[in-house]
């Protein structure tokens, strides 16, 4: 067996790690462990000079295993695997110790943090001795793509892909395409017609030779893996068997239902409407109260269902600007109308938005601030002798005064929330959800449209509330990623699959029962289990169920994990003794 020669690198991550972990001490101490040839610390291991340091050392010291102790492997494991490849080593001769997310950022005692970092690195060093070269595995890419959701994000993605000549299957839950954008009149901040934009796109996808649209259709279950997914889609009583290589999830969000907020009387007071209902009014071309009269006073209440611990704590991002848009539309439709904006905090970020705020505030619009956390305005019917239909009582925060606002029409700026079937969808495509039932991206900064499931992307509102340009940007980003894999024709996938040692397999079929993917079949001739590596996703459940130890979970073998435990404990206990 070849001599084990390990290089260990401790990252400072600027001050992120170095301020809480004595990185030099960690490097010094770990350099004394058996088989460690060299141990160094450096400012930023992931930077080009940091990676070059590893490559040079591999060549100079003939290293054959590398441990990097830095951030989470979820962020840079692939980066360093590529570094090893560049130096001519097998990428799996690498192990990461997470001393940022799981040490320096969560502990506040430098001595204890340094001790723990040493134990984690020792664990990685002990583990890597059992690492083995694993061959790359590639799978071919079916050039078709499934797009789930026919709103602006899904439509954009479908068109981008279809225009390159690839087949797209677009699945829409409702009968109509266009999603939320088809339900609004104008867009902010430039007050362009939403209908004009979306209808042109709908028209294009409906007549695109490369796009097949499934309306009134819900995805039930998807099988397969990146490059080779399949699903049976039922439509109008017939079933279609679709095969596709990538999936774009663009299922959007729905409007918050304000019936539960007592103060606002939605559902009881006829002229309290949601922003979505007001959009319908604008699309119909008439702003009227239920009695069919033009309102003399219109109040717009912000943050309905948003930024409040009783409903949703997040900001829905689009409502403030929509509310300003309404003020402009009201002013031009009914020049004499009194417009009141009851807001919590005006959020006018983004291109052209602060400008919209400034220009709107010059149009004789009254801005009144309330406390969104503790003190919501109360909408009530006006007295018979009042000149308006409703009165809104609120504590105006800036003046500190209790005021009454007259209103004939109240528009509730309802926030956005997850679709009712978000959880089922996440399950059927195999992606995770973060708080608030938004779909989770692979990394919030470094990989914002991919997911932890290869070949599945999340774009638009379903990932988090956002404006139309952001949704479109995400859609285009995801299609660029997909087109790259289509052009390559194949993609590398993880090789951490299971394998059966046929010599010690006793043929009990336990592994076949526990496999969630039917990736294991039984070879009747030899009475042994056989793993189909194309289907196996490497969860390792079979490995831990196998009574004879015949199944190895590659890269998470018994020896690797047991050595990791041993390395961790012995260093930990050794340091406890001191």
């Amino acid at each position, binding site marked *: 067996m070849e001599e084990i020669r390990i290089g260990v690198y401790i990252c400072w991550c600027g001050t992120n790690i170095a301020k809480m972990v004595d990185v030099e001490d960690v490097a010094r101490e770990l350099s004394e462990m058996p088989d460690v040839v060299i141990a160094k610390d450096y400012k930023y291991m992931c930077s080009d000079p940091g990676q070059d340091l590893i490559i040079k050392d591999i060549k100079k010291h003939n290293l054959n295993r590398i441990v990097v102790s830095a951030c989470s*492997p979820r962020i840079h494991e692939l980066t360093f695997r590529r570094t090893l490849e560049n130096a001519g080593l097998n990428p799996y001769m690498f192990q990461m110790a997470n001393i940022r*997310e799981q040490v320096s950022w969560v502990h506040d005692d430098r001595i204890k943090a340094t001790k723990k970092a040493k134990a984690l690195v020792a664990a990685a060093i002990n583990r890597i001795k059992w690492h083995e070269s694993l061959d790359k595995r590639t799978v071919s890419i079916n050039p078709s793509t499934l797009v789930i959701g026919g709103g602006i994000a899904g439509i954009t993605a479908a068109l981008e892909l279809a225009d390159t000549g690839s087949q797209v299957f677009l699945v829409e839950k409702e009968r109509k395409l266009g999603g939320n954008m088809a339900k609004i009149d104008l867009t902010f901040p430039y007050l362009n017609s939403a209908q004009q934009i979306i209808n042109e796109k709908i028209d294009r996808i409906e007549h695109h030779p490369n796009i097949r649209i499934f309306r009134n259709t819900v995805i039930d279950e998807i099988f397969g893996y990146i490059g080779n997914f399949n699903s049976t889609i039922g439509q109008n009583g017939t079933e279609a068997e679709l095969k596709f290589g990538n999936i774009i999830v663009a299922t959007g969000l729905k409007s918050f239902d304000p019936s539960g907020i007592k103060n606002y009387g939605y559902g009881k007071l006829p002229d309290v409407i949601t922003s979505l209902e007001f959009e319908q009014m604008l699309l119909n071309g008439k702003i009227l109260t239920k009695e069919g009269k033009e309102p003399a006073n219109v109040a717009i209440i912000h943050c309905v269902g948003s930024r409040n611990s009783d409903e949703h704590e997040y900001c829905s991002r689009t409502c403030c600007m929509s509310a300003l848009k309404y003020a402009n539309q009201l002013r031009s439709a009914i020049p004499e109308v009194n417009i009141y904006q009851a807001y919590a905090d005006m959020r006018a970020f983004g291109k052209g938005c602060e400008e919209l705020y400034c220009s709107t505030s010059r149009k004789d619009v009254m801005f009144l601030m309330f406390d969104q956390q503790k003190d919501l305005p109360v909408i009530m019917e006006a007295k018979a002798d009042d000149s308006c239909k409703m009165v809104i009582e609120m504590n105006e925060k800036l003046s500190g005064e209790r005021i009454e606002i007259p209103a004939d029409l109240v528009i509730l700026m309802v926030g956005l929330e997850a679709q009712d079937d978000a959880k089922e969808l996440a399950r059927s495509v195999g992606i995770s959800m973060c*708080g608030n039932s938004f779909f989770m991206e692979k990394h919030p900064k470094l990989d914002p449209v991919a997911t932890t499931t290869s070949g599945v992307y999340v774009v638009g509102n379903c990932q988090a509330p956002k404006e139309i340009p952001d949704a479109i940007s995400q859609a285009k980003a995801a299609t660029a990623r997909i087109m790259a894999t289509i052009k390559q024709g194949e993609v590398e996938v993880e090789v951490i699959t299971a394998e059966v040692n046929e010599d010690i397999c006793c043929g009990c079929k336990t592994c076949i029962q526990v496999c969630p993917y039917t990736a294991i079949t039984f070879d009747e001739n030899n009475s042994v289990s056989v793993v189909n590596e194309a289907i196996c996703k490497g969860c390792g459940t079979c490995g831990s169920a196998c009574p004879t130890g015949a199944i190895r979970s590659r890269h998470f073998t018994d020896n690797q994990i047991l050595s990791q435990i041993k390395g961790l404990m012995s260093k930990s206990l050794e340091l406890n003794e001191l």
Partner: protein
Amino acid sequence: MTYEPTIIAFLCNWCSYTGADLAGTSRMKYASNINIIRVMCSGRIEPMFVLSAFREGADGVLICGCHPGDCHYHEGNYKCLRRFHLLQKYLTQMGLNEERMRLEWISASEGKQFAELADDFTEKIRSLGPCKLKETAETLT
């Protein structure tokens, strides 16, 4: 010197490890006694891993997986749960307090819950005192 327990935590890659990472990115503070070992799925956690941790001197073992129904591999966490209950009985028979091993579901968004769990479990193990399994095993062999 005050007794500082050593705890090994086995976390599944998709939910719990990500949850622990979130505790980090959110700069939540928790006890440094928790040492995390990553596995792809809680279904991969063999009884041998837990026993080996105690044998090597761990005072407590924490196992975290995705919430029921949310497993990245469909149902690995259920298999983990089944094994956990059997293993609990086994630990008791060995003379170990079954509370030295805990199974909890931590989703990718539950950084706060993970930090609280880490503190809570550390305090529990601290109150139980050092696990003597390693010592006993060494005397016997």
